[in-house]
């Protein structure tokens, strides 16, 4: 899954992106993004029958794209990524040629400020009426007034584990608490069977702060230092820091504890079941609460086919389509009308659709200020390298 993103030889990537950035010199300034949306809606009649979509890998029911093509006679060029950073860098370089992209809300927040997106024309998106107002209000923290984006799917960051390996080493392991990972006295028991942590600095440090009972979005130097202390204490027991390798490794027993994303851990659970080698994967949302992430559908300001992009977004929010996507990828749809149509095993899974009392404990990962980014990344580098 992560092949495409990881294969970028950074030198080549830098030069390529800089070249495209240079070509992008003629782009409209940030302020005109909104007007552009209006203008393009008028000129839509003669829009080419194409829409270019850039989504996360393994993040859609595969028949959905073909169905859209058939119904609207619009060809979909469907391309995938596996990291917000890669998407963001391409968006900031400009001229991506994409019509629909799916950044997570905390990244989208910053991208909106940089003028990356156009305002959505809500008259072209009637299916937005189905969205859960509670969730829509949550993402308004990132996208004020919900002007630029629509929730595609959402999930949580939590603990994935190999049930038998953990029990064998620690029968009374605190499976429902961050202590499982962040208490070195507990974590050290699992060093031999393998621990992995997501390579997502802001999100992971947010979960450490929640373990410490602090605000996950704090930019206080003291809080960051406290979080770093926790991370460094468990570092000797962590085998690697990576955002997608753990899916396979958890499924085939190479590791036994992973800080991971809900849907991905469930994917590992399903794969382990299919393999039938006696690996049982569990997932828990710690009782201290965790980070919730929203992946947002948005249209770049320089999208060549904005009208088709609106059609595609509206199609994804059609209840039966949203339900199929949620069932296929084990992430939750915000579409209330879709909920009854979601496959029963997914709909009734409290991991995918957490009950109200768990929902109340979920906190957003807000975009950090540019000053803080560097400190955060530096702390992260110290953690990753263990020095």
């Amino acid at each position: 899954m992560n092949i495409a993103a990881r294969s970028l030889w950074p030198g080549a990537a830098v030069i390529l992106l800089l070249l495209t950035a240079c070509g992008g010199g003629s782009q409209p300034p940030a302020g005109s993004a909104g007007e552009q949306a209006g203008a393009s809606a008028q000129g839509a009649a003669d829009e080419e029958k194409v829409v270019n979509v850039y989504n996360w890998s393994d993040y859609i029911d595969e028949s959905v794209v073909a169905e859209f093509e058939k119904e609207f006679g619009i060809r979909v060029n469907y391309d995938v990524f596996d990291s917000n950073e890669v998407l963001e860098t391409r968006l900031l370089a400009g001229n991506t040629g994409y019509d629909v992209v799916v950044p997570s809300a905390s990244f989208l927040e910053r991208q909106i400020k940089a003028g990356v997106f156009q305002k959505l024309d809500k008259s072209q998106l009637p299916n937005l009426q189905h969205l859960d107002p509670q969730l829509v209000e949550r993402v308004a923290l990132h996208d004020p007034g919900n002007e630029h984006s629509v929730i595609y799917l959402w999930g949580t960051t939590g603990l994935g584990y190999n049930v038998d390996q953990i029990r064998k080493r620690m029968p009374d392991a605190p499976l429902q608490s961050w202590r499982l990972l962040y208490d070195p006295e507990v974590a050290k028991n699992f060093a031999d069977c393998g621990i992995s942590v997501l390579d997502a600095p802001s999100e992971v440090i947010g979960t450490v702060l929640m373990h410490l009972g602090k605000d996950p979005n704090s930019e206080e130097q003291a809080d960051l230092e406290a979080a770093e202390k926790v991370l460094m204490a468990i570092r000797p027991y962590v085998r690697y820091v990576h955002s997608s390798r753990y899916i396979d490794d958890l499924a085939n027993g190479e590791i036994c504890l992973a800080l991971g994303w809900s849907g991905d851990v469930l994917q590992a659970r399903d794969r382990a079941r299919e393999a039938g080698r006696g690996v049982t994967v569990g997932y828990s949302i710690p009782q201290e609460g965790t980070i919730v992430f929203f992946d947002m559908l948005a249209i770049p300001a320089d999208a060549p086919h904005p009208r088709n992009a609106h059609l595609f977004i509206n199609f994804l929010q059609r209840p039966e389509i949203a339900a199929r996507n949620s069932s296929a990828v084990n992430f939750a749809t915000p579409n209330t009308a879709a909920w009854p149509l979601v496959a029963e095993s997914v709909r009734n899974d409290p991991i995918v659709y957490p009950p109200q009392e768990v929902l109340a404990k979920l906190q957003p990962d807000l975009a950090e200020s540019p000053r803080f980014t560097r400190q955060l990344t530096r702390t992260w580098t110290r953690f990753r390298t263990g020095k």
Partner: protein
Amino acid sequence: MSVQGGRVGRRLVVAVPYLWLLLFFLVPFVIVLKISFSEVRLAMPPYAPLLEWTGDRLAAIRINFENYSYLFTDPLYVSAYLYSLKVAAVSTVLCLLIGYPMAYAIARAPGTWRSVLLMLVILPFWTSFLLRVYAWIGLLRNNGLINNALMALGIIDEPITMMQTDFAVYVGIVYAYLPFMILPLYANLEKHDPMLLEAAADLGARPITAFLRITLPLSVPGIVAGSLLVFIPAVGEFVIPSLLGGADQLMIGRVLWDEFFSNRDWPVASAVAIVMLLLLVVPIMLFQRFERRELEERA
């Protein structure tokens, strides 16, 4: 007439590589250099232009050297550069130790075998580089082929952890770049005149002496060419350490990635890239000087 036509033609032929270098090396280099003197900004693209019109037809040029001085305030960068150089140097030596006997054997093999052996060296290029590195994961991991085989044979009881270690990185780099060492060495060794060794034997030199005093000195250009072809890409290597390596050692490729993608700091990323380029240009220049001296000596 014809003489002049030939001169124009020659100039045209020479112009092509220069044009190529100008377009695909110098222009990108200048762009990266320009960004490395700039400042971060939350915009598209995410840096401030160097040249800004301030109204009255006056252009303000703001050159910012901070991005370079920053690289020396944090030991992260220096240690990553040094570690990259170390990994590249060790890999180059290993490639040489493994590649030299192979190239020598191929050069000495009978004619029909030679093309087959050369083919075998080139054959891996027919599959994707990425897939070949991925294949190593299957070989090296705890549950992988090597560990399973050793355990089945009863040589070890517990799997040896090889993935996510420096060892795996060296295995990957040496494996991936070995052909770049073998091919120039072969091209050099193949040209040696066997009569020289015969003459040495006639004069009483033992094979090892003949090798050390004739073959080895004659093959130095091949060694230098092969070493550069391995060393230069290995310094900037990103894929192999990120797939096979652990997190505890940082190569400069990963630092560059972090600056560019995690920090969104294109100016500092560009400064890192420029310094890396300088680190690579120096050995190339040394090589060229070496070659020139070689030519002069022959002449």
